[in-house]
């Protein structure tokens, strides 16, 4: 209920300010055509009001998650007006709830939460919002928009889509081309989305047929094992879409062990080792589709803007958006240098 009260309060406040402005406009003799956005500046690097940001993420047991933590920390360090309260990462739902509640009790100004399980942590997101602490929900989304002020995350469907288009363009003009897919953990929603995007993209290229798909587990070990089997099963194919660069380390090892180089490979996520292989261009890996861990740095930016009551630079609105879906850019030899610094180990 308090959530609604505060939203109503906000609406009322805005209306009052608007009425005031209208009155001023009416009574003043001076014409004021300046856009209102000037009254509410966009966030920039200049120090502003002090903001304490609470950050709660899952256990960094994977290269990408580790990069998320690093990105958040280094971005917060950049701003003299930001204090970061970071909790120990945990994959245990109860433990993460406890950590977020601690941050709520500490009365941080803004919360950034990357939940280990978005659905399970929705309640604590709601609790923070009701305590008037706005939540930036990072990547794994809560069940209801009431539990966050802004969501920022990657585009799994877009990853598959862009990987499919990249492969489609590379194989254009090749009749009866075949592709195979090395997917991630099949019990995750994001894996299904990546596959769906890929399949949808391939529909634009009638000359290409997907002939095999196996699910690995986002680990090097499983990537090697599943890829070795796929290579044995498919004596000839033209392209491979691998959902994750970490399991890609294992997949590339299996490809090397099988002595195969007769196809092109597109990875996913944006690991440093993948960028380096793309730059060297002496193997099958030709591109990777981003799922950028820099989203954690952007989440800190958004939290700071929110805490200082500012909007986003380059946009007309007074406030930060309610939802931001990142773009899954394709990184290949032509633009890899530009992205190298974002590569995670």
């Amino acid at each position, binding site marked *: 209920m308090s959530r609604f009260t505060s939203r109503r309060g906000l609406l009322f406040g805005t209306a009052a300010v608007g009425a005031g402005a209208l009155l001023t406009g009416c009574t003043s003799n001076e014409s004021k055509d300046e856009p209102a956005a000037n009254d509410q500046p966009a966030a920039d690097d200049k120090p502003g009001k002090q903001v304490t940001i609470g950050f709660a993420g899952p*256990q960094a047991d994977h*290269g990408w998650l580790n990069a998320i933590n690093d990105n958040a920390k280094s971005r917060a360090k950049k701003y003299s007006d930001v204090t970061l309260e970071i909790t120990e990462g945990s994959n245990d739902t109860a433990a993460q709830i406890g950590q977020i509640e601690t941050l709520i009790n500490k009365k941080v100004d803004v919360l950034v939460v990357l939940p280990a399980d978005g659905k399970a942590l929705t309640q604590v997101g709601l609790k923070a919002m009701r305590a008037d602490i706005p939540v930036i929900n990072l990547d794994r989304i809560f069940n209801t928009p009431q539990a966050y002020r802004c969501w920022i995350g990657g585009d799994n469907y877009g990853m598959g889509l862009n990987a499919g288009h990249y492969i489609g363009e590379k194989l254009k003009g090749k009749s009866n081309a075949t592709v195979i897919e090395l997917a991630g953990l*099949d019990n995750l929603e994001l894996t299904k989305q990546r596959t769906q995007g890929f399949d949808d993209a391939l529909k634009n290229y009638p000359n290409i047929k997907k002939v095999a798909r*196996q699910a690995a587990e986002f680990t090097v070990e499983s*990537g090697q094992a599943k890829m070795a*089997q796929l290579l044995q099963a498919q004596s000839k194919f033209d392209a491979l879409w691998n959902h994750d660069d970490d399991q890609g380390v294992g997949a590339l*090892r299996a490809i090397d062990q099988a002595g195969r180089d007769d196809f092109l490979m597109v990875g996913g996520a944006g690991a440093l080792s993948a960028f380096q292989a793309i730059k060297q261009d002496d193997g099958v890996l030709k591109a990777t589709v981003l799922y950028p861990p820099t989203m954690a740095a952007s989440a800190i930016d958004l939290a700071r803007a929110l805490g200082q009551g500012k909007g986003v630079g380059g946009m007309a609105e007074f406030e930060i958006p309610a939802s931001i879906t990142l773009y899954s850019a394709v990184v290949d030899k032509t633009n890899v240098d530009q992205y190298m610094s974002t590569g995670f180990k």
Partner: protein
Amino acid sequence: MTQHASPPRDSTGKVPSADGPPAWRGLIARADVRTLSLLGVLAALIIIGGITKPDQFLDTRNLQLVLTQASVIGVVTVGMTFVITSGGIDLSVGAIVALASVWATTVATQEYGFGGILFTAVLVGVGCGLVNGLLIAYGGMVPFIATLAMLASARGLALQITDGKTQIVTIPSVLDLGERDAYVLGIPPLVMVFAVVTIIGWLVLNRTTFGRRTVAVGGNAEAARLAGIDVRRQRLYLYLLSGLCCGIAAFLLIILSGSGQNTNGNLYELDAIAAAIIGGTLLSGGRGTITGSVLGVLIFTTITNIFALNNLQSDVQQIAKGAIIVAAVLVQRRTASTT
């Protein structure tokens, strides 16, 4: 089936007779119904593979692939078979493999080259086994609890060492062992290690005092103690052995995947226990068979291979794997009870 009788049994579960059967009869007796039924399951799988994907399945490269993929978990299962035969359990094998593999692939270790990685992997494996053994044999802890604690802490330590990062191996002499050039007479080095561990394991369990003591401790620990066996020391050695196997397996995994990651060895404990149980090793102890365990591992690996070759998805694979475990055990019980 109560297998807690005091006389020690050999790998087939039969009490050896005093004078011993003639050599040819011994061979047949050793290849008992259980082993034969396992061979039957494996043969059936090979036929299924051959029918569904004749070109890919019956290829030499595929045979090399199946055996290579069986090697890492196979070595772990040999150690697990000893532990289970003695009436114990080791839930920490997967975590030990993870810890040994990440410790052996740290930047500091890689400076010492091939020997440094091998030595570290084995040392970490044995070290973890030693802790398990001391806790169980001399600390009086239940194996389930002690190794569960090791599972948690070894995984935690592995995560701490890697900081969640994948540690890529850069030493050519290590990586080359996983390449086709290293195959001798078409046999990958990993498979050779697996074969050697299996043969040594079989000889130790069936032909040495150590093996007889292991079976005796598992059959009836109190009787074994009264018979003059140092049960505690025996248990310590068994968990050391399991840890050693994990260390060797970690080294094989490093060669195979070219990296160390804290997620390595995921669910190895369940795979190794399942393979040993399917093979005919009694979970309650007192009977163990290395041959059966290795056949169990080969059955699992062959199933995975056939599924992948036929492009079946992981959900179907898991259901079928469960069904085959049940079927294999049911067939064994039926054939065992009718003879």
